[in-house]
């Protein structure tokens, strides 16, 4: 009897793993080959062109390089990553529903939660591939400036942690927009209202209400060079949570929205008329 249960568990694990791999593969390929990828790559590489221009056309260093680097990274955090998360996060389920291809998952012996997990991991792989190279290139272009701090190791360390927070941002926003795509009729519109309405407004209002936005926790967790403290206070309005609290909150929000996506998938009827 124990052997049979073990075999069953082993069969279940191998089937679940196989389903995960196939869902990941289909989703990752569709993400990379989708037409929106060209637009997203242009958007992601925009700061690279700006930093190149800065390095070539700014011999007098009117704007110090560490300030440029800070603003470029904030631009990745609060604009580029949100837009990428919005379009790809929503597409995970939203595009499959619009194109009616989600039917093929539903008529297979695949657990619906595995559809969400497989697609979410594929989304992460795709968006990290899109955002990491331009961030790295922008960093290298600016940090090679002789006016940058001589403590290169510290600069690299700060950049690595900033990259980590941007990836956290893609993760948490991706989970939110994936839920929108799974549950709502007009997910892109609602997503835009959230991303460029609520999230941006919360960055300029003081007080406790800021804690009802993802952007607050991302800015709080965002490591910066101490020389940039004043610039950060301009963004955070002097109100931040601790980095540990922020990372925990980001993780909780991600898990909650993934759970809501799974719930939506089990309860919503997708009608294809």
């Amino acid at each position, binding site marked *: 009897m124990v052997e049979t249960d073990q075999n069953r568990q082993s069969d279940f694990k191998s*089937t679940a793993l*196989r*389903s995960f*791999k*196939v*869902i990941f*593969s*289909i989703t990752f*390929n*569709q993400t990379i*080959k989708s037409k929106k990828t060209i637009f997203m790559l242009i958007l992601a590489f925009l700061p690279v062109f700006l930093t190149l221009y800065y390095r070539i056309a700014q011999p007098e260093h009117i704007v110090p390089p560490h300030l440029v680097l800070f603003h470029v990274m904030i631009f990745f955090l609060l604009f580029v990553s949100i837009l990428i998360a919005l379009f790809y996060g929503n597409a995970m389920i939203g595009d499959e529903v619009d*194109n*009616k*291809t989600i*039917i*093929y*998952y*539903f*008529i*297979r*012996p*695949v*657990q*619906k939660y595995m559809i969400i997990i497989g697609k979410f991991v594929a989304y992460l792989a795709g968006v990290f591939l899109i955002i990491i190279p331009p961030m790295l290139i922008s960093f290298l272009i600016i940090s090679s400036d002789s006016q940058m701090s001589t403590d290169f190791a510290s600069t690299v360390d700060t950049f690595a942690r900033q990259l980590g927070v941007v990836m956290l941002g893609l993760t948490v926003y991706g989970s939110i927009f994936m839920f929108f795509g799974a549950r709502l009729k007009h997910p892109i519109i609602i997503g835009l209202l959230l991303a460029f309405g609520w999230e941006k407004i919360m960055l300029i209002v003081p007080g406790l209400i800021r804690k009802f936005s993802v952007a607050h926790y991302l800015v709080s967790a965002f490591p910066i060079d101490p020389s940039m403290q004043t610039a950060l206070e301009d963004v955070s309005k002097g109100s931040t949570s601790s980095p540990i609290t922020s990372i925990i909150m980001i993780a909780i929000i991600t898990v909650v929205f993934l759970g809501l996506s799974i719930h939506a998938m*089990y309860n919503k*009827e*997708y*009608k*294809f*008329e």
Partner: protein
Amino acid sequence: MTPIIESTSLCKWYSQVMAVNDISISVGSGVTGLLGPNGAGKSTLLKLMVGLLKPDKGEIKVFGERVWNNNQINQRIGFCPDLDAFYETMTGFQFVISLAMLSGYSKTEADERTMEVLRTVDMLDNKDKKIGAYSKGMKQRVKLAQSLIHDPELLLLDEPLNGMDPIGRHNTIKLVEQLNQRGKTIIVSSHILHEIEAMTDNILLINNGRILAEGNVHEIRELIDKHPHNVYINCDKPRLLASILVQYDDVVSTNLSKEDGGLIVETVKPDELYSRLPGIILENDIKVENLHSPDDNLQAVFKYLVG
């Protein structure tokens, strides 16, 4: 014998529209045709059977189990939807093998099964082309392939002959016969009577979400034959054609259309008219521009049946 599919007072509505209205059926093994005009509720009923939709009232069971949110039962069901939905950047082979692996096959098994199934639906030569470049008939065959890939016991085929050329239709009809002989239970939907006739004698007649009749297709055919058909023929010699056709016993009347002068032939045996026409046209050098029958789908028949 336990029915394969059983529904009790099954209802499904979309906003104000009752797509499936109090359907209680019991479907056993073999091939069953689900026959009804467009908008009759065929696709909705099939989607309820495969668990894509949840009943609003009543219940439906397949192999004795409820199907909504029951993904494990999908191992035993193959569904060919009427929708044109594909990953257009994938090749036919990639599409089918992915779904084979999602059905539980290992990579090696899926590879073998995919080649076999694509051979069965005559898509081996085009397997490495992107689906976006396929014709409608080729897409239909790939859809059929994905429904067969896991060798299910029950096949639900929603308008499987749509978009296929005559050879494709013939091959698909033969495939349904072969699958039936192998013990598969098949439900195939269509709005065209002779398509269903070619595959099975056993039909469910559906209209406005209700099952109007179930039983032998020949009885339905007799009902149709009692109801005169109108056939419209636009040609250069309508009066000559009318004078020839009116001599046949099955032609009830001929009239000229007031709008464009085309010939409207009323007949109780449309099949005989169609088989006779080519000879008449050739012998009398008549040029035919347009030929159709407003009664050739089921709408007119259903109007007649429902009254």
